[in-house]
């Protein structure tokens, strides 16, 4: 076989290369000028992320494919990449003072964040099962290290170890699935798989079904879908808050992009077979995530279950597998990036050194000492619950519309009921902040970068509600891919 060598292939990976160059620069500054690196690395990584966003937008509307069809850069990929890069930029902003406060090694921290982002972007543009696995490893290995990054805190170590063991296990399951799909279709290229599925002999092959199932399990682990969600609360609770914020956006968005490519683009012909599985997983994820979140007294665990529940809503759109579903997934991910990172930013502000003050009671009467901070948290809670003046509402409406268009009324009813249930624990945070009035309301310091991140997240959450059309025109082009 002749391996095609084409210099123009590198154009497709410009965002990744910008991030790689930035990460290398940060590592080198860290190696030779430690003091300068501690001051400058967050700003360098922010500049790199901004450059990557510009490059990603530059690739918009110009679908490219390269590296022998391993990498594609279509509009769907660019849109999800933008969600991921937005999450990264905001995560870097909330990390500036956090990394200093917790005395984490700054250079390595930001370099790992950027390297993990490269893995996420690669995963989004993977058009090949091998490439999906490779980028999954790139993004995961950096995240394993970041999870256990607060080495002196046993909870962080525990979380890192759990995430590593379960993560490598699920990656192995994914590879097994890839092997079975290859065995059944003779190819790992997503487009070729779609072409193979036309022949009835391949369609009914149980090996193919088993392979698709195992890939679903592997990616379901990454998006934290029930019953593969066991790691999520422990990892989010133990990991540094900023890392939990970062991975709740990035790895989820990347895994959903891969899931869409595998299930809808490559195995769309197999939908009658996988629909039942995705249906059940989506229903379980929404129900378990929202119900268990009610019982949480730790805000980080509550947000972890909230993140599980939101994976369930996006899975509804995946199950729908129609134009509306494909439009709503990038929109949901972008809206989720804003509202979820906003909530985590407030959590980062309220926690004290050593990840103390993460109980819901630590938010008691926050409004009376910090009205703006509590107000933003209220906004993000409204958004996550899907209450109107926020992007969370619009995102959920899109998903519900996709479910209606796909005639999945049962799943729609479950989604609506669990949304109503979820309002209870989101609004409980608001009640604690606004209606309780302790003798001494909590006093927290909000450093400027963190305040900027909260402001951007709040603005994005409202902006996407007021002008969903801004992304509508983008998502229209995405839907044409189907």
């Amino acid at each position, binding site marked *: 076989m002749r391996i095609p*060598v084409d210099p123009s292939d590198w154009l497709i990976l410009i965002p990744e290369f910008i991030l790689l160059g930035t990460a*290398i620069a940060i*590592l*080198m500054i*860290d*190696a*030779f000028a430690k003091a300068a690196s501690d001051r400058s690395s967050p700003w360098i990584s922010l500049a790199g992320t901004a450059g990557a966003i510009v490059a990603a937008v530059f690739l918009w509307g110009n679908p490219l494919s390269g590296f022998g069809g391993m990498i594609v850069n279509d509009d769907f990929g660019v849109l999800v990449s933008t969600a991921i890069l937005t999450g990264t930029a905001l995560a870097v902003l909330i990390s500036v003072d956090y990394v200093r406060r917790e005395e984490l090694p700054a250079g390595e921290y930001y370099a790992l964040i950027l390297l993990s982002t490269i893995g996420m972007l690669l995963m989004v543009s993977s058009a090949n099962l091998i490439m999906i696995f490779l980028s999954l490893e790139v993004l995961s290995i950096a995240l394993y290290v970041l999870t256990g990054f607060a080495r002196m805190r046993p909870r962080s170590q525990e979380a890192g170890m759990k995430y590593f063991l379960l993560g490598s296990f699920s990656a192995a399951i994914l590879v097994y699935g890839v092997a079975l799909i290859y065995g059944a279709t003779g190819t790992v290229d997503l487009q070729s798989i779609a072409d193979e599925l036309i022949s009835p002999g391949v369609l009914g092959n149980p090996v193919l079904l088993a392979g698709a199932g195992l890939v679903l399990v592997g990616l379901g682990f990454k998006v934290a879908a029930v019953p593969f969600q066991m790691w999520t609360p422990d990892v989010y609770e133990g990991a540094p808050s900023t890392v939990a914020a970062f991975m709740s956006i990035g790895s989820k968005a990347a895994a959903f992009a891969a899931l869409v490519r595998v299930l809808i683009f490559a195995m769309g012909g197999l939908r009658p077979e996988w629909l039942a599985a995705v249906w059940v997983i989506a229903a379980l994820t929404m129900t378990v995530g929202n119900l268990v979140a009610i019982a949480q007294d730790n805000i980080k665990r509550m947000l972890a279950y909230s993140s599980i529940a939101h994976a369930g809503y996006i899975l509804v759109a995946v199950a729908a597998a129609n134009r509306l579903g494909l439009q709503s997934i990038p929109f949901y991910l972008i809206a989720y990036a804003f509202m979820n990172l906003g909530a985590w930013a407030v959590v980062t502000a309220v926690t004290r050194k050593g990840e103390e003050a993460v109980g819901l009671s630590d938010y008691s009467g926050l409004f009376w000492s910090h009205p703006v901070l509590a107000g933003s948290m209220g906004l993000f809670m409204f958004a996550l619950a899907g209450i109107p003046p926020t992007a969370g509402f619009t995102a959920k409406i899109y998903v519900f519309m996709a479910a209606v268009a796909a005639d999945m009324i049962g799943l729609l009813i479950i989604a609506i009921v669990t949304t109503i249930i979820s309002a209870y624990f989101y609004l409980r945070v608001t009640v604690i902040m606004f209606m309780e009035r302790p003798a001494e309301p909590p006093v927290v310091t909000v450093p400027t970068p963190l305040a900027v991140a909260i402001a951007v997240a709040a603005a994005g959450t409202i902006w996407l509600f007021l002008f969903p059309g801004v992304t509508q025109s983008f998502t229209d082009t995405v839907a044409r891919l189907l």
Partner: protein
Amino acid sequence: MLVQYLPFLVLFIVAVAFAGGAMVLSRLLGPKRPSATKLEPYESGMVPIGGTRGRFPIRFYLVALLFILFDIEIIFLYPWAVIFLEAGAARVFLFFEILVFLGVITVGYVYIWRKGALDWE
């Protein structure tokens, strides 16, 4: 279709029978005169001192880890070299491509060096 795997089955049975038979026969027929020296794991080797589950410094793990990392990375040079020979006009591009790859590895090497991962003490 399964018939074509028949030789493997035969080979498997013969292998198991031969290995198992040899062990059973030597146990039945061989004379047994055990002594302390003969019962050691390595009859003619070093005298074992202590168990095998002793703790040893974590530095060994670090060295092993770094060795595997750079070892695997250098292996990528082989497929590159094979393609390079047949690449024709694309050789110039391939050359700079591998320079970038080696550059990234060198950055990692410089980093661990500066961070003291190669210092034993």
